[in-house]
């Protein structure tokens, strides 16, 4: 699992007006008959690394393009620093984009690509070379300044695209799945570099991805989108520990779902029962695999214990996933690797780890 960086935890409630850089107000977008975004609202604080996370078709890329200015909202408004943004064309917005396929200009060198934004907005000629060199240094591409962009590798092109956007000192940097075209190792490396770059520069990043590991590793806050609407907006730790919906629970990390009947403060699922504060009736609980432990002699007093048969063991180095079967339920438990193990065993989990999900 990716080592989590100590990320600044922001309040899950929207920051107040003075702390908001970008505000999306009830924005909807319709393409023909399809409504891709349904009345979405979001606030992004200055200096934060916000990720739009979702499957394809969730509307995350559309939202990004609306903020960049390549699409117009069907309804709703977008504001930045107290001024209306969505009525401005893209070239007037203090927003820059790192495109998914980089979109580097093939007829210009690396240096010319990076300096493009400075040139067209009329930055003083004397100032440009210095700023270009600084940007290239930031992404470690100084020695390629005179190269044609078509000769560079994917990772190198990505850095140039980043430099080209950052050199303009935008208020908000949009990144449209910039790492998706890179292979796994390079991707991990670039994630680390991106995160530290953002830290160093203090520029607000809005990052789009479908990869939840990436989102958890990089973000200060994650905005989870599903079918054009926001499921949850919170820090990675918060979403992981307290997913608001079943979709959030299973999209971020893996989880088990326990359907339980609650009666006078006791939740019952099969042979398991535990104290729960939910009102009477049916309730859904999310239980992370790593919260299920193999009973090895002792367990906390309030622990919920149960017996299950190990159907499969999926090894992954330091830990392994056990597929458990018990009457009326199958669960997955993540335990420390311990060699081959089969048959029926006893397991336990803490009631506090069973998180109730709003349905």
């Amino acid at each position: 699992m990716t080592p989590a960086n100590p990320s600044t935890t922001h309040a899950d409630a929207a920051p107040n007006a003075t702390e908001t850089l970008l505000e999306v107000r009830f924005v909807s977008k319709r393409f023909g008959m399809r409504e891709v975004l349904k009345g979405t609202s979001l606030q992004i604080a200055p200096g934060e690394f916000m990720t739009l996370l979702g499957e394809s078709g969730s509307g995350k890329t559309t939202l990004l393009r609306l903020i960049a200015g390549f699409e117009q909202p069907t309804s709703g408004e977008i504001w930045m620093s107290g001024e209306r943004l969505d009525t401005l064309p893209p070239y007037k917005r203090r927003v820059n984009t790192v495109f998914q396929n980089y979109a580097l200009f093939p007829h210009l060198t690396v240096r010319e690509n990076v300096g493009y934004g400075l040139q067209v907005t009329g930055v003083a000629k004397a100032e440009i070379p210095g700023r270009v060199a600084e940007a290239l240094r930031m992404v470690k591409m100084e020695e390629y300044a005179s190269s044609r962009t078509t000769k560079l590798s994917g990772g190198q092109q990505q850095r140039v695209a980043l430099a080209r956007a950052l050199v303009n000192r935008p208020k908000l940097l949009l990144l449209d799945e910039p790492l998706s075209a890179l292979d796994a190792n390079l991707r991990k490396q670039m994630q680390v570099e991106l995160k530290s770059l953002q830290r160093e520069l203090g520029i607000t990043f809005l990052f789009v991805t479908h990869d939840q590991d990436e989102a958890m590793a990089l973000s200060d806050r994650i905005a989870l989108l599903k079918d054009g609407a926001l499921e949850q907006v919170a820090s990675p730790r918060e979403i992981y520990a307290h997913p608001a919906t079943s979709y959030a629970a299973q999209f971020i990390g893996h989880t088990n779902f326990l359907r339980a009947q609650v009666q006078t403060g006791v939740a019952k699922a099969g042979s398991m029962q535990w104290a729960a504060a939910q009102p009477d009736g049916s309730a859904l609980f999310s239980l992370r695999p790593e919260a299920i432990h193999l009973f090895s002699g002792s367990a906390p007093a309030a622990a919920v214990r149960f017996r299950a048969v190990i159907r499969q063991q999926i090894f992954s180095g330091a830990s392994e996933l056990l597929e458990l079967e018990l009457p009326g339920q199958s669960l997955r438990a993540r335990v420390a690797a311990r060699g081959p193990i089969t048959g029926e065993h006893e397991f336990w989990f803490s009631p506090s780890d069973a998180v109730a999900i709003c349905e």
Partner: protein
Amino acid sequence: MGVPMNGSTQALRRPTVLAVYSLLVFAFLYLPIVVLILYSFNRDGVGGFPPKNLTFHWYRLLFNDVAIWDSVLNSLLVAGGAVVVSLTLGLLAALALDRAEFPGKSILRRLVLLPLILPGIITGLSLLMFAVSVNLQLSLLTVFLGHGTALISVATTELFAGLQKMDRAQEEASLDLGATPWQTFWRVTLPNLKLSLVSAGLLIFTLSMDEIAVTFFLIGRDNTLPLEIWARLRRGITPEINAISTLIFCVSVILILIWYRIRTRNIGSGAQELLERP
């Protein structure tokens, strides 16, 4: 590819000036033809304004004009022959360019393209000199040789593109399953090229029917349709010529649209590929 290729960028201002200009360009391209068609129904000749007394008289005259229909027949013969020769040689050339290495390969490729890029008069005159030097009398045969030769490159380009698109593994699979190269050619390669063959054939047919420049120097006693019209022009112009031109236009349009549909079905939206570099 993941890159949006079709204008998902919104036009931020409606480009009206550009749109109007484009409309004017279209008008320029079509107006002469529209006028020509209109005046084919004019009883009082090809000029003046406005056309009065609309009539089918000239079409009736055309219908009974034996010489014109003879020339149409001649054109059809030549075009048919040109299609056969060009397609056959073009197919072989495309296969050769796609699969064989031999000295002079790049020369062949360029040589085959020459008649399409050079002004027709040069190709026509060269063939004329050739015909004279071998004592070949000018006739439909020489015209046929001219068309067939000049249009090979149309077939080659089209079929080469079709070959490139073809999945090579299909032929390998055929051989693997026991078919000989000959069988593989007929059962696998050729069917895959069906659309390319039809599309190239249509184009060659249309180009041959309309060809003048090369034909001009290779024509004998029997005229092709364009040359017959040309001869008439010398004698004086009448709306009958408008009438035959209108018919030519209508047939051409139909053929070209069919050709376009076939080609876009075959190669996808890359129909521009053949057209961008004949």
